[in-house]
């Protein structure tokens, strides 16, 4: 046993390595991203960035069926994208131990939406879930999940929240415990071929029903495992209110307990299915219990159901009707819950605080997206077009001052939404703005759909050669994988052309030319794809590679009349208005010169 400071994601990777994981696949997404990076650093582990989470999950599935332990890594949005595979591998079961990491982001601190993937993974797919309370537990659970998955033949999931993934602490860890096994694929079509086949051995039942029954029957075995799981335990304490604390909810409760100053009776639960006997034993002692969990009332409803089935009458207070139903828990919120529940009072309504000016994210100084966004804004101002947006750094174009994209939903939705807008009869141009990594993630199929259905839209691919938002991971358009530089990028323009789109190319640092291309493309019929190609400044600028000729940009104060149009419409962090004139902060300006185009008086030179 050794002790070392690790981040939560590092600890999860360590657990997977010790369990003998052979194949790791994921798609970058905060807060789960670094798990894959850390796994890639271990000897004997194949790790990859797949094009999307569904494919990552499928890669891991193939590996498990070939008798090698595998891990699929994603954030909650990715689990949504991978739900189709989830709803099959749950029924087939696995061969070698297989674990899904589905990281949730309560509060949506770094996400488009707030959700609880336990609902999808457990309530819907009936797959067991571990919900770690701290990073030591995240490490131990990962390791245990591989063992249990192999033992039960059921996929296991770990659902850490951001406060686990991104927390650091001292981890006690061990050595690799798993033995090497032979890579062999033994076909078992009655399991691994999910199809409406008549099963002779089961009296002519159809296979989907038979596999469903298999999964349902597994639940009792899983419940028995959770009954003796080291991740669930009861703690004695004072008072007439019992507290059931799940995952990080336990950490916040223990923190709140220290401030509260009294030892509270606690049942810590970090597994789904629930350890039902443990729960019954605990709740029978109280007339009121409080359930603390992130984010939906998953455990709370299961406990209510369990109490109903066992004819136990008590108040179950949780996310459903007592605590706030949305947003992250905190030690302070839990402390308030303890005080209110003990006093027999309602949870107090939140008092809105004073607004402190927000620090919103924007494009970096020197970012290639800013030129593209500025050009597109100028074009739609003239042609009345609408822009559907997608996920990536360019989404900051929806904020002040650009307020350009009219929609942001999920990965790849910009393209079908744009032609849906046209299908509904919108008579002005529709533009879909998507990044390169997102284009490969889930944009390609949308593009094929648009072309096949004779849509009339302009798709703009912001091709900056990296997955910038999550920390510069490679994608199929970059010519590298997670581990090797193979030098064979898939050019999205070539792909689009082969699919039948009319393809245009431009360098977004050349704003004038880009605007011309964007205006022209929209005037053509059919599906047009504009490849706006320029390297991500933040990533490649460090390596001395940029897609513009760097220049010393300055303000001619005699020409500048202080109209502030440059600041109000453009929003480069290096530009401000001071004493009635535009000012460029030389220490942060990266000399891209895009702003020169913005000033129609020619004051920026």
């Amino acid at each position, binding site marked *: 046993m050794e002790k070392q400071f690790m981040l939560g994601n590092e600890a999860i990777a360590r657990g997977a390595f010790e369990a003998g994981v052979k194949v790791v696949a994921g798609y970058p997404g905060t807060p789960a991203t670094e798990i894959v990076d850390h796994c890639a650093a271990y000897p004997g582990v194949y790790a990859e960035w797949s094009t999307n989470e569904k494919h990552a999950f499928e890669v891991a599935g193939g590996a498990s069926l070939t008798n090698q332990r595998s891990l699929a890594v994603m954030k909650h949005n990715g689990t949504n994208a991978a739900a189709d595979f989830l709803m099959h591998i749950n029924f087939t079961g696995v061969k070698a131990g297989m674990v899904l990491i589905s990281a949730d982001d309560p509060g949506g601190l770094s996400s488009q939406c707030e959700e609880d993937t336990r609902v999808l993974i457990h309530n819907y797919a009936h797959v067991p879930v571990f919900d770690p309370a701290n990073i030591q537990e995240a490490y131990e659970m990962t390791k245990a999940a591989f063992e249990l998955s192999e033992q039960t033949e059921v996929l296991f999931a770990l659902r850490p929240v951001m406060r686990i993934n991104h927390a650091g602490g001292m981890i006690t860890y061990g050595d690799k415990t798993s033995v090497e096994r032979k890579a062999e694929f033994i076909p078992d079509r009655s399991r691994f071929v999910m199809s409406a086949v008549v099963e002779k051995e089961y009296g002519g039942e159809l296979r989907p029903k038979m596999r469903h029954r298999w999964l349902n029957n597994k639940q009792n075995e899983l419940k028995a495992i959770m009954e003796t799981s080291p991740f669930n335990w009861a703690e004695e304490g004072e008072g007439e209110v019992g507290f059931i604390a799940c995952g990080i909810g336990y950490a916040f409760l223990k923190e709140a307990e220290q401030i509260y100053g009294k030892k509270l009776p606690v049942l810590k639960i970090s597994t789904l299915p629930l350890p039902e006997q443990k729960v019954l034993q605990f709740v029978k002692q109280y007339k009121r219990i409080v359930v603390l969990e992130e984010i939906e009332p998953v455990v709370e409803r299961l406990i209510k159901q369990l109490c109903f089935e066992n004819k136990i009458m008590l108040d179950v207070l949780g996310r459903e009707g007592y605590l706030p139903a949305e947003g992250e828990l*905190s030690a302070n919120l839990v402390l308030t819950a303890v005080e209110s529940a003990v006093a027999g009072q309602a949870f107090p309504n939140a008092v809105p605080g004073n607004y402190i000016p927000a620090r919103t994210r924007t494009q970096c100084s020197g970012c290639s997206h800013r030129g593209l966004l500025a050009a597109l804004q100028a074009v739609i101002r003239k042609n009345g077009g609408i822009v559907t947006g997608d996920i990536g750094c360019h989404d900051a174009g929806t904020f002040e*001052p650009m307020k350009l994209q009219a929609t942001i939903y999920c990965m790849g939705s910009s393209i079908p939404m744009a032609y849906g807008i046209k299908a509904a009869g919108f008579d002005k141009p529709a533009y879909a703005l998507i990044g390169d990594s997102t284009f490969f993630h889930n944009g390609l199929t949308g593009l094929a759909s648009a072309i096949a259905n004779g849509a009339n839209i302009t798709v703009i691919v912001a091709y900056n050669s990296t997955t910038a938002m999550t920390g510069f991971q490679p994608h199929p358009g970059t010519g590298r994988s997670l581990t090797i530089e193979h030098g064979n990028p898939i050019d999205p323009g070539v792909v689009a052309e082969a699919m039948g789109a009319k393809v245009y190319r431009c360098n977004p640092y050349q704003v004038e030319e880009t605007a011309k291309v964007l205006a022209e493309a929209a005037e053509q019929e059919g599906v047009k794809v504009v490849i706006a190609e320029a390297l991500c400044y933040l990533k490649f600028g460090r390596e001395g590679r940029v897609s513009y000729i760097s220049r010393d940009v300055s303000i001619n104060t005699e020409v500048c009349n202080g109209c502030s149009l440059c600041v109000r419409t453009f929003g480069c962090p290096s530009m401000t208005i001071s004493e009635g004139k535009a000012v460029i902060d030389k220490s942060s300006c990266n000399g891209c010169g895009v702003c020169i185009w913005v000033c129609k008086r020619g004051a920026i030179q």
Partner: protein
Amino acid sequence: MKLDLVIAGVGGQGNILASQTLAKCAMDDGYNVVNTETKGAAQRGGSVLSHLRVGSQEIYSPLVPKGQADVLLGFEPLEAMRYMSLLSKQGKYIINTAPVPTILAKLKVDQYPSQDEMVTAIRHQGVEGYFIDATQAARELGDVLLTNVVMLGAFTAINDLLKPEMVLNKLLSQIKEKYHAADVKAFNTGREIISSVL
């Protein structure tokens, strides 16, 4: 023994280096350490808050609860103001008074508060602390990027859990040797600014 520290700043101010330096020192001293950062796209101008929790007992939450921080280091005054509620009534703050305007303030969508407003709002909370112009001090030493080192030095002047020379050595061990002389000066400047008003 415990130390709950929060460092509030803006992406690029070296908040995380400062927090990691202190975390490593505390670990070397045998303390239990838990930390985390809340950052919304920090590299793109967002706000960054580091939580560092040091203690001899078990630490449960990586986040410092409201009203529990022993020290708040504000690398930027608006960010300090944003997170003042984390500071304990018995805690202490050191706040750099040099503002970094927000994008929305530049666009006149929001108004960045005046220095007076911020100082008044912070003082109003009745907690002891220091306002220093660490950015100016760093500029005088030749590089505003030394602001975090000035703040780190200042921190060692009000805290006795971690030895100043240990913090300095740990900091130097993480940066290139050519920057060492400037960092030592900046660290000592921070200490002196606080010592001169103590």
